[in-house]
């Protein structure tokens, strides 16, 4: 009995030793890219398992692993690329696991898992890089101080409802050491730079032509032709002009455009002796508008007619502002209302109330979602770029008109590009459209 037990124990031990030998002798294929000083042969790594790993479970390792600096960035990022494992198409790869080790005297330290990516992925960006600190450190050094080694493992497992029963992975060769670095030019944005330079060139060229005295034709914009009539109406009726320069702050170009037009309208109001009121939604806009209106009155030779209270602050809150202006419009019944700038949902509330009291309304905004409301409720609407052209239109200053012409040439180039692009896309040539792709923000 004792001898039979000893025999059984011996047999089982022998079997276990044979299994261990089979598993530990399985090797992976290597790809040479950044060879390290001693050639380390990766082995098929088996996690401690509850269930035994099937003999052919380990997939082939990923091929051609490379690691390098992520281009066109501010540093702090390395990109690891690899070719798919030969077993991926056979469904033996569930995901890829990325390992990273710090550089210790030119050799890799301890590898730690960095992340896992589903099968089919062939690239990983490591953004968890130790970067330089300190203002001058970052300005004067393009390369980050820390270097790393990487390896990629193809992983196969049997997982049911989140429980992993067995797992097998094959690792690639180690690549490294690599450091991230910052670039001085973002080549992914070169198409934007070319477009911007082209547009600026057109604008500057036509400004110079206008300065040289060449006449510039500009079509009639009904809303701007009516400004004179609108201001005159207010004078005749003895009622106020309300000027609303948008509900947003000075960091918006549309607000600046609205304030620019305010200067012209204020000058006209001063000349016609009409009462102008400018309720604003932002403190910085109030300060700027006050200055603009004061200068406009001075230019018209009526500095004494200016009263600081003409330009007053109401509230930053969108609907509080709309409610206050509605109340003022209904009580004071202005003859003319200008709404020039960036508006959101309050646009229709303001416009309809103005329509209700019978005021002549001239509105302009570059917010496409609010344009239909202005078109429906106002007498005249400046659509999109007409708002930015208004200052040039009203002043008739040659340099400003020249810039409009340059902008229009730019638009012509864009139109031509769209037509060419549509034709090429229809014919199956997709490269042209890629020229206009903008990556990043």
């Amino acid at each position: 009995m004792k001898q039979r037990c000893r025999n059984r124990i011996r047999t089982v031990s022998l079997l276990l030793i044979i299994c261990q030998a089979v598993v530990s002798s399985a090797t992976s294929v290597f790809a040479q890219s950044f060879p390290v000083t001693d050639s380390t042969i990766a082995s098929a790594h088996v996690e401690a398992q509850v269930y035994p790993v099937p003999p052919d479970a380990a997939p082939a390792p990923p091929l051609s692993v490379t690691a390098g600096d992520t281009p066109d960035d501010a540093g702090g990022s390395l990109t690891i690329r690899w070719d798919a494992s030969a077993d991926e198409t056979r469904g033996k790869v569930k995901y890829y696991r990325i390992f990273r080790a710090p550089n210790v005297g030119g050799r890799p330290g301890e590898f730690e898992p960095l992340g896992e990516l589903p099968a089919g992925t062939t690239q990983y960006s490591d953004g968890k890089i130790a970067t330089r600190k300190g203002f001058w450190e970052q300005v004067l050094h393009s390369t980050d101080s820390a270097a790393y080694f990487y390896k990629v493992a193809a992983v196969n497992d049997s997982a049911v409802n989140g429980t992993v029963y067995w797992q097998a992975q094959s690792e690639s060769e180690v690549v490294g050491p690599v450091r991230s670095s910052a670039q001085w030019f973002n080549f992914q944005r070169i198409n934007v730079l070319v477009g911007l330079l082209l547009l600026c060139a057109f604008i500057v060229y036509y400004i110079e032509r206008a300065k040289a005295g060449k006449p510039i034709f500009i079509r009639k914009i009904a809303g701007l032709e009516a400004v004179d009539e609108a201001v005159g109406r207010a004078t005749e009726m003895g009622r106020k002009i309300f000027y609303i320069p948008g509900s947003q702050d000075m960091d918006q170009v549309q607000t600046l455009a609205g304030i620019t037009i305010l200067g012209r309208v204020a000058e006209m109001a001063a000349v016609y002796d009409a009462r102008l009121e400018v309720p604003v939604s932002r403190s910085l806009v109030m300060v700027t508008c006050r200055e603009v209106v004061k200068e406009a009155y001075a230019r018209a030779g009526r500095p004494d007619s200016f009263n600081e209270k003409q330009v007053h602050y109401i509230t930053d809150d969108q609907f509080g502002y709309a409610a206050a202006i509605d109340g003022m419009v209904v009580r004071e019944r202005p003859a003319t209302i200008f709404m020039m700038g960036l508006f959101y949902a309050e646009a229709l509330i303001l416009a309809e109330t103005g329509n209700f009291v019978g005021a002549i309304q001239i509105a302009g905004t570059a917010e496409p979602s609010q344009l239909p409301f202005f078109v429906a409720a106002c007498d005249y609407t400046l659509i999109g770029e007409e708002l930015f052209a208004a200052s040039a239109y009203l002043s008739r200053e040659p340099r400003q008109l020249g810039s409009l012409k340059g902008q229009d040439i730019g638009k012509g180039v864009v139109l031509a590009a769209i037509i060419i692009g549509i034709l090429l896309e229809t014919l199956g040539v997709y490269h042209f459209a890629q020229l206009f792709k903008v990556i990043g923000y």
Partner: protein
Amino acid sequence: MNGRMYKYLAAVAVVTACVLLYVGKRVAWFEDMMFPTWLSILVCVLIAASMFWILLRTIKGKPAERRTVFLYVGIAVSLPLLMTISVHVPISTEGQLLFDGMKRIQPGSKVLVSFDYDPPSAPELQPMAEAFMRYCFERDIKVIIIGLWPQGPQQANLALAKLLAEPAISAKNLVYGVDYVNLGFQSGNEFVIQRMGSDFKSMFPADYRGTPYDSLPLVGNVRNFSGIDYSFNLSAGYPGTREWVLIGVDRFGLVMGAGNTAVQTTGMYPYVRSGQLKGILGGMSGAAEIEELTERLGKGAKFMVAQSFGHMVMIVFIVIGNVAYFLHERKKKKA
């Protein structure tokens, strides 16, 4: 009665209606008050008949004034809330795409919900927020809340208060800081998103209540967007979905769905078609869609009935307006 008396009467009627609504809501009988089906149909027939009468008056040369339009719109959007009428909401392609993305979120995943709206947009976006977070809580999906609009986190708290009081969710005994967290508002618009891409903690050093970021178990090991499995943005303007797509999705690879107000939804369709946005819900119908998809009809579905009636009334008045216009033109030609 002169004009001033009419104004006083109108003011008294409005105040009385408000008091009745408030009292009714407090004593809960209003919540249960619904017209029976026969009364709902009768009300609809009466409204239709009165509008037909307005059309006849218009033909006779007495066009309706804007106050009549206001009155009918008011009736059209408020009375259906009391009626036992329901409408089947067709699911849009974009809404289905969003829901398919939601179904792929695994239990235990971390979802970032950005509340980028204020109370005026709440009727459209709040039902979306509630439906989405209810879906997450029911499936043990963790929710991290932030806001790029100052009132956003407060809207989130209102939604959370409502959801946590529901029997199915309160039975789960969700723990703040473990199952959900509200990191609050941060100013800076799109720059907040940019900096979150590298470090959440730099933008939200503490949560809405002042608890330090590192001591919140749910976010303690979430360094940046790589720790987020899915993101849902509720947006009513700027900053909103466009900024999240241009920075969060394009630069940092965030997987994102969105809910927008109806007015700005069309501007987001290009992002859905390009695959940058994994679906979008638009306006009130979007809210009704997600309620239908998650099989929990609520305010979104109810408000769609009111919106349907509102649209019908507007269309009828447009027709009446055109009748008045053509009759006026004919008179001018005869003259």
